[in-house]
């Protein structure tokens, strides 16, 4: 329908006009790509709230939110889609009620459960791109693995105290064994950190706008991937691709130079997830043969999002 003269509704031209005239979006091509894409946001907390607001605002066609938690008062200084009257409500549903009032056009899907090896495939396979907005290593390894298995680009962010980190993984999302694909979480972190070195926002604290900045930056990266047509590179494009290094953006709110980009590696030969020697399979995931909580150590298992 990209050839139709007015492929968008009048309300859509009004609503998205200011971003459609940005040259890098493209008056209609970019907006139609956003409309026909689907994004999964795993975690409706400090990262997921601002990320979801801008992804919904931009007109992504289908938006899924995964979160098994309920809203607490201690969330509200940073989880800006929820509100005082929603304390006790499921976060995924609270977030969607806000998003609908901001932009009624997208289709919203609430997944009111924590992501797990058992439900991950079924949830993730319905979407084009995934945002990791969770808060613990076990979820981060699981989400990366399922994105590799299902060939989804993954925009991952994290934050603690006054620092934040952002990394785009598995982009381009080529099948395991193709070294031209973007590295996965295991390429960068082959071994999990010792459980006692993992500090949650609950224990270490978090400045609201610090995690907010990281979540909004996830929305920037997701929109870039969609608009630039990088969700699933066509086979011809795949032929010519070379090993793709990635970069990590570091944010330190108290530093005089608050942002820093560092160059990371491309896919790791022998990576457990994305190399030709991959030990991963959807069947193995389903059957529970991979115990992410055990892999990451019990101290971090209290709240597997």
């Amino acid at each position, binding site marked *: 329908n990209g050839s139709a003269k007015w492929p968008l509704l009048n309300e859509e031209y009004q609503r998205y006009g200011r971003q459609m005239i940005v040259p890098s979006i493209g008056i209609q091509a970019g907006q139609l790509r956003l409309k026909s894409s689907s994004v999964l946001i795993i*975690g409706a*907390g*400090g*990262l*997921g709230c601002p990320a979801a607001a801008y992804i919904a605002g931009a007109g992504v066609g289908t938006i899924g939110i995964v979160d098994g938690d309920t809203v607490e008062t201690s969330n509200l200084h940073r989880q800006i889609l929820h509100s005082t009257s929603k304390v006790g409500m499921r976060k995924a549903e609270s977030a969607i009620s806000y998003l609908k009032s901001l932009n009624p056009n997208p289709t919203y899907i609430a997944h009111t459960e924590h992501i797990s090896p058992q439900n991950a495939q079924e949830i993730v396979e319905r979407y084009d791109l995934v945002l990791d*907005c*969770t*808060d*613990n*290593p076990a979820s*981060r390894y699981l989400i990366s693995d399922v994105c590799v298995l299902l060939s989804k680009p993954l925009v991952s*962010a*994290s*934050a*603690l*105290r006054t*620092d*934040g*980190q952002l990394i785009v993984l598995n982009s381009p999302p080529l099948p395991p064994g193709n070294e031209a694909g973007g590295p996965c979480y295991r390429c*960068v*972190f*082959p*071994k*999990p*950190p*010792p459980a*006692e*070195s*993992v*500090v*949650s*926002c609950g224990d*270490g604290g*978090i400045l609201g706008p610090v*995690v907010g900045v990281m979540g909004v930056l996830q929305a920037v990266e997701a929109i870039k991937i969609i608009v630039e047509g990088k969700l699933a590179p066509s086979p011809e494009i795949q032929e010519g691709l070379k090993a793709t*290094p990635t970069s*990590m953006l*570091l944010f*330190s709110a108290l*530093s005089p130079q608050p942002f*820093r*980009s*560092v*160059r*990371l*590696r491309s896919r790791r030969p022998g990576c457990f997830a994305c190399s030709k020697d991959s030990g991963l399979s959807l069947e193995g995931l389903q059957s529970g043969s991979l115990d992410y909580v055990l892999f990451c150590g019990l101290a*971090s298992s209290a709240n597997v999002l």
Partner: protein
Amino acid sequence: MASETIPITVEFTGGLEMLFADQRKHSLSVPAKDERGQAVTVGWLVHYLCVEVMKDPRKEMFVLDGHVRPGILVLINDADWELEGEASYALQARDNILFVSTLHGG
């Protein structure tokens, strides 16, 4: 020759600075050669930081089993040290070595 030193910058972020007296940026002068007369490497530096600079007793939060512990990225002039030869990279004057503890919160 024995006393020749090279100036480098070492930085810690992501919470690692708390193991180093809450100081993110350290300007160091390190010997150009190790005790065996070899050019000093990043591997040497990690040991040096652990023994000479780090006052916090929780050494295992920085070095585990003789290696930088999992969950810490080492960047040499803003590039992953795996791109630069890892621990065997020989330090150059004015190198910037950044240790980043990965964050997991959200």
